[in-house]
């Protein structure tokens, strides 16, 4: 299947955003196309999560415009096109009494709309999502009893259950060990190439992520770089972005 990488699905135009007096994003313009596998990288406080939240409509920039599937974000209604995998460590209560299956079912809720129960077809889609991330055997276990890597797979399945065209992931591999990280990235590549899902992933691990994605967008208040990972690694962008510490990060594996 050929992917039309020219079709813009997210257009960010001249965005600026500040928290009070602190300017976090300055004049950012970035297009994301159908089928892209792009990582937002940059130092802490560089504005990665802020930009992600702007694209998801969770916060509104003071200046600039965001278009989703050609529509201004304020008029955009079709949120079920988006899946979201939050920064697990912060957003998730390990004692919360839900099974893996119940978590994945939540992914259908936004799509279903109010006053409608899940039917047989929804249950099949949930089964499919569980199978996709190889968590079928764990469906009835409590989410809090799984390993970090397994939990992250469940959150991917939750996003998949909504049958999204785009999935946003906010630092999904924090706390996941190296072996499980590899499997996790293999899964993401599968979703991108086989299921044709656009992936937008925030990462702090430049070295690892640049071997996975097809595009990098580096943020440090401004958009420092946007393009292929290879060119990025060859350039002097790392020093510019992170200073001396970058070399330490890049060789720390």
């Amino acid at each position: 299947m050929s992917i039309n990488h020219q079709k813009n699905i997210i257009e960010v135009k001249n965005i600026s955003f500040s928290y009070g007096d602190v300017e976090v994003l300055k004049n950012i313009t970035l297009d994301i196309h159908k089928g892209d596998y792009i990582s937002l990288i940059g130092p802490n406080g560089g504005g990665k999560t802020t930009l992600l939240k702007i694209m998801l409509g969770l916060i509104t920039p003071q200046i600039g415009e965001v278009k989703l599937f050609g529509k201004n974000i304020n008029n955009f209604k079709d949120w079920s096109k988006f899946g979201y995998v939050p920064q697990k460590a912060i957003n998730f209560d390990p004692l919360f009494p839900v099974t893996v299956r119940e978590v994945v079912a939540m992914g259908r809720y936004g799509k279903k709309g109010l006053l409608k129960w899940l039917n047989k077809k929804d249950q099949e889609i949930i089964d499919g999502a569980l199978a996709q991330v190889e968590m079928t055997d764990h469906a009835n276990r409590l989410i809090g009893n799984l390993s970090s890597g397994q939990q992250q797979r469940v959150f991917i399945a939750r996003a998949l259950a909504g049958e999204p065209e785009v999935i946003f992931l906010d630092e999904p591999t924090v706390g996941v060990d190296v072996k499980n990280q590899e499997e996790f990235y293999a899964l993401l590549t599968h979703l991108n190439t086989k299921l044709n899902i656009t992936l937008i992933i925030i990462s702090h691990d430049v070295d690892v992520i640049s071997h996975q994605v097809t595009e990098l967008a580096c943020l440090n208040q401004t958009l420092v770089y946007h393009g292929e990972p290879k060119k990025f690694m060859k350039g002097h962008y790392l020093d510019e972005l992170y200073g001396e510490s970058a070399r330490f990060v890049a060789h720390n594996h």
Partner: protein
Amino acid sequence: MFEIFQYGFIVRGLEAGILIGLIAPLIGIFLVLRRYSLIADTLAHVSLAGVAVGLLFKINPLWTALGASALSSIAIERLRISKKIYGETALSIFLSGSLALAVVIIGLAHGFSVDLFSYLFGSIITVKQTDVFLIFGLGALIAISILIFYKELVYIAFDEEAATVAGLPVKLFNTLFVLLAAIMIAISIPIIGILLISALLVLPTITALQLKKGFKTTLLWAEIISIFSIISGIITSFYLNISSGGTIVLIMLAIFGVVLLIKNYDKK
């Protein structure tokens, strides 16, 4: 042993109690998981001011408690969202403010002929037939609302941000939920009493949470614990001639203690 049912008040008390026991966990599980337990306590104290107003003007105190609790729940939620003051500070303003109001009203009325004690700690003797109808009607409203919006409420409780991204009207549901909690608290007053309401809402859920099951199973266990405690509490309080609210809460605490012990024993 069935002579107990010859008394009209005990039948009314049991009817009201079973209704309350059935509905309380539906609200309680979300209060606990959203860390809203303190809201229950605050709204209960607001209800006391409502009860005082009702007694002063000779209106059924359940209605005035309901009004005070519902209005305050919306005000508290507004204050919480505005982030102008800290969430728990908003609660303590309402908690102590309404208690102050209640005390002043009671003073103005030079005390009441009815026993205020029964509103504070629950006494099934005060349950009137109209109260049972009111509890049934409003209880059904709560139960139906929770069942209809079950999937949205669970999603928001588990992951508010992802629910927002999925396009759910999160703010609307949060307001709806505190409003339902406010109604729940007001209708629980006759059985359990103002000072013990949060125990009624919280204890069955935290006991069921110890069993480490999925959401629906946890809710089912909370229901079983809640209804068992209320029925056995009302019957025990009748025979021993003691406060129904206090007895119910002590039974709930005992079950919580036993479950905690068994669970700890399992681990060893």
